[in-house]
């Protein structure tokens, strides 16, 4: 019984980060239709910037959230306003745009990694922050994991309320369902899609800040998180932000169960689930 609790709590702690990353990608992929292969690079940027700020200027990682979040938002917003809007307008069909945007995002991945490599080299970095043990029921965890989970859920909830309760949120939901029609109903579609892309980048950046407290960091760490985000987004259902949130926790728990038996198999298990899912139910758990 205690080991089951152990595994579930570990899964939830892992799932919080997955959920945040996936909600971010869900906005970019589900709404803005950009399968952003460079999503993980924003995570890497957030994490390494936090590392630099904490180790050189002694700035609290939680305060870094306030710096990194808006910065990544602006980068994401501008990227969509320039590159992806241009691709969207010049593409003859949505399918062509989807293909081109993957490739452009792949170019971005290289660009960002190239810059990061110049700044942070290929070394593995890390720091300790809030690493003292905390008891969760009968299970003991480092405090930073709990802080991470709390902030990840908090950011996702605030964003959910924003989507559900505000006028702009409604515009985003409309754009997710049908960008063409939303545009006809008076939604400034270019602005809304750019905002979604920016919010996606913000979540990736924030996830990076949170991750940096618990795990080691290096310049090519991004891709594995991108892949996890893609798996969760497909698991939750393309375009369903709530689905991505729930999917993150499901994948976290699955990962934690597999890790309990054999830690080396957790990534392979994710891919296996993903491939089976695509074959059996490509629309995901909450997809239409």
């Amino acid at each position, binding site marked *: 019984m205690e080991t089951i609790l152990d595994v579930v709590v570990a899964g939830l702690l892992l799932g919080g980060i997955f959920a945040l990353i996936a909600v971010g990608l869900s906005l970019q992929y589900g709404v803005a239709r950009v399968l952003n292969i460079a999503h993980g690079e924003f995570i890497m940027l957030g994490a390494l910037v936090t590392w630099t700020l904490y180790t050189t200027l002694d700035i609290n990682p939680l305060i870094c959230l306030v710096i990194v979040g808006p910065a990544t938002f602006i980068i994401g917003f501008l990227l969509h306003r320039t590159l992806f809007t241009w691709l969207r307008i010049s593409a003859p069909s949505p399918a062509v745009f989807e293909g081109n945007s993957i490739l452009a995002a792949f*170019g971005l991945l290289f660009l960002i990694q190239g810059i990061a490599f110049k700044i942070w080299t290929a070394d593995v970095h890390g720091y300790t922050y809030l690493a003292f043990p905390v008891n969760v029921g009968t299970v003991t965890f480092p405090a930073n994991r709990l802080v991470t989970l709390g902030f990840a859920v908090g950011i996702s909830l605030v964003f959910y309320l924003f989507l559900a309760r505000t006028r702009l949120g409604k515009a985003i939901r409309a754009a997710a369902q049908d960008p063409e029609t939303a545009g006809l109903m008076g939604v400034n579609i270019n602005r809304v899609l750019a905002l979604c892309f920016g919010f996606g980048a913000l979540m990736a950046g924030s996830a990076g800040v949170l991750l940096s407290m618990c795990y080691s960091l290096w310049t090519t760490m991004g891709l594995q998180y991108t892949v996890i985000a893609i798996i969760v987004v*497909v698991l939750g259902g393309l375009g369903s932000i709530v689905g991505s949130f729930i999917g993150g926790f499901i994948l976290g728990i699955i990962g934690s169960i597999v890790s309990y038996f054999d830690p080396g198999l957790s990534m392979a298990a994710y*891919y296996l689930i993903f491939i089976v899912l695509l074959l059996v139910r490509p629309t995901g758990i909450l997809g239409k």
Partner: protein
Amino acid sequence: MDITTFKSRRFWVPGLLLLASAALATLPLWVGSYWVVRLTAILMYILLTVSWALFSGPSGYMSLATAAFYGVGIYTSAILLPSTGALLPLPLVIVIAGLASFSLGLLVGALTLRLRGIYFAVFTFGLVLLIQRFLVWWEMTVTHTRGRIIIVVDDTIIYYVMLGIFVVALLTAYFIRRSRSGLALQSIGENEEAAAHMGVNVTLVKVITFAITAVFMGAAGAIMAPKLIYIDPYIAFNPLISFIPVLMAIFGGLGQFYGPIIGAAIFAYLQEELQASRFADYYMLIFGGILVVAIAFMPNGLVGLIQRLVQKWRKGGSAEQHANT
């Protein structure tokens, strides 16, 4: 970059290619071993790109499984040609690698029949990572080995084998593209339902073509393996190998048969130059920059851009409207 359209009007291309092949065949006689090694790599990229474009160009299914097939080839070599002594002769190993990739291609093709668009791309990408992770786990917990070392093969032999595979692949690609299957594949890219209604055996054409392209990718992996000397699952199943052919093909332009060849040749040459130069540290930065610019400003690739410029020059700017059709 509409990867579904292709209009082939030129028939002198194979003649030129034969001429080029003759030049390539005698190449090791008049250049140093340095250029033989680099040309082998460039040929490998062109081969992967042409194989990729053979299926994904006309059909519109963006496959990211290249690294899986290439990796199967590398692994076949690694298992059959260990540094302790070759178990089978090299030509046989390459044939076996091709067959292994073909089988994987058939399996993937059959599994993914229902997947369209982005799901197909994501599935094939996931496949590469699944194989990679599974092998890492397998070697760590079951065989307790880490990495494999492959026998040394002479650079000139590697070059000639690569050239052989290259020529066979180009000829196959050319004839498939002009055959009934090629047209069927293009009609699938334009409208799969309509193609099925016209009597095209959609399933058969897709799966077989996909598997044929896998043969060349596997064979290329098998012959490139000895150059790597040391391999492990991360090296063999490198996701980059899946993306590079797509980028090269689109950089060249999918509108013409020779587009991917030109794109791959230029891109591979630049890549080799950059990595060998003092800008090696900036290699990723420059590569990424070229990519973003190419995708944003050359929707029909280099060949499309040149055609547009030629048209513009001939008609004095009145061709602008036609250029994007």
